[in-house]
């Protein structure tokens, strides 16, 4: 999917608002108390970083690193530091979730289309696809990666949150101490509080009423990430199947909350916790409580 490489900057009351599209999500940047040129410089840096990460890790782009890996058909690949870090991180998440989270589970999307319709795949379909799923089937010895034929990796579960944190780092280099809220499709991070100490207000969309805010979180500093099924789901026989699949079974997680929002120090940490909690289904809240972070469920 091609995102239009254009970012717009407008002035709103007491802050700048930058908007663009990246990683298939609406992205916005709110910049507190800065002269116009600095705001433009920051927006350019953030949008460039978002597009860079999208280009590098999108499974749809033929020139992306991920696509090359997915087409490697059993060949050994050398990956760079950033990619290696993401692979290591993904491996840790697979371990922490006992296999429920797995970046090789992308092939399962051939069986599931979460468009609000009622198509549900057969167990046979899933069993066939599961042959190509499993981190244990990958040979990963940094910096060498080898996938079996038919396997694919997909950083969709962690890419956006990582991009937010990475962009926040860039802003810190350009304008240290500046309060800048980065929001990539609901994954948010703020490094410093605003000058007048007022918090940024972040609306969390209601899982039942699209477009309406279920709650507003006042974020002074830190990160928020939300995981939910409000827009992507399958509805069949009175059961709502969220789009989050358990990589071990190929089926969506059952009895998970409709939406989980976590507040944590970094966007990656927040996003990881929402994903791991969702994968726990009914016990999502147990994991969230044990982790000690603030969270909100719907």
């Amino acid at each position, binding site marked *: 999917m091609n995102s239009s490489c254009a970012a717009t900057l407008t002035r709103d009351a007491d802050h700048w608002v930058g908007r663009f599209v990246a990683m298939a999500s609406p992205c916005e940047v709110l910049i507190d108390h800065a002269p116009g040129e600095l705001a433009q410089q920051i927006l350019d840096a953030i949008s460039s970083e978002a597009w860079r990460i999208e280009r590098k890790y999108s499974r749809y782009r033929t020139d992306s690193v991920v696509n090359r890996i997915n087409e490697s058909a059993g060949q050994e690949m050398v990956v760079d530091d950033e990619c290696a870090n993401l692979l290591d991180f993904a491996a840790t998440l697979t371990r922490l979730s006992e296999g429920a989270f797995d970046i090789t589970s992308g092939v399962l999307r051939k069986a599931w289309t979460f468009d609000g319709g009622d198509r549900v795949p057969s167990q046979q379909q899933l069993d066939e696809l599961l042959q190509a799923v499993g981190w244990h089937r990958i040979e990963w010895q940094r910096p060498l990666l080898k996938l079996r034929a038919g396997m694919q990796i997909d950083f969709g579960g962690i890419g956006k949150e990582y991009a937010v944190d990475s962009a926040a780092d860039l802003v810190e280099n350009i304008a240290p101490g500046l309060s800048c809220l980065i929001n990539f499709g609901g994954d948010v991070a703020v490094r410093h509080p605003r000058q007048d100490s007022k918090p940024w207000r972040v609306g969390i969309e209601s899982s039942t009423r699209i477009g309406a805010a279920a709650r507003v979180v006042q974020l002074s500093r830190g990160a928020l990430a939300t995981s939910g099924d409000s827009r992507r789901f399958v509805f069949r026989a009175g059961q709502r199947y969220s789009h989050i699949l358990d990589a071990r079974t190929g089926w969506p997680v059952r009895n998970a909350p409709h939406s989980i929002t976590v507040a944590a120090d970094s966007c990656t940490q927040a996003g990881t916790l929402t994903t791991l909690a969702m994968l726990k289904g009914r016990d999502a*809240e*147990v*994991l969230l*409580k*044990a982790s*000690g972070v603030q969270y909100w469920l719907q």
Partner: protein
Amino acid sequence: MKKIPLCLVLLGLAGCAGVQPWERDVLARPEMSLDDSPLDAAIDDHIYFSKEASSGGRGFGGGGCGCN
């Protein structure tokens, strides 16, 4: 009226190890809360208060109605 001895063996339990904050996963479950159904408890207390001579225990004596 018999007196209830106030020195309770339970005071010894105060020295119990307890759990670390990160071990509270099971205790965090809503059904593990001692007050997970306050409305049910209030209703039960009210029914038993009106049919029996004892009340309270879990919380204050309750009552406050002409039913006893």
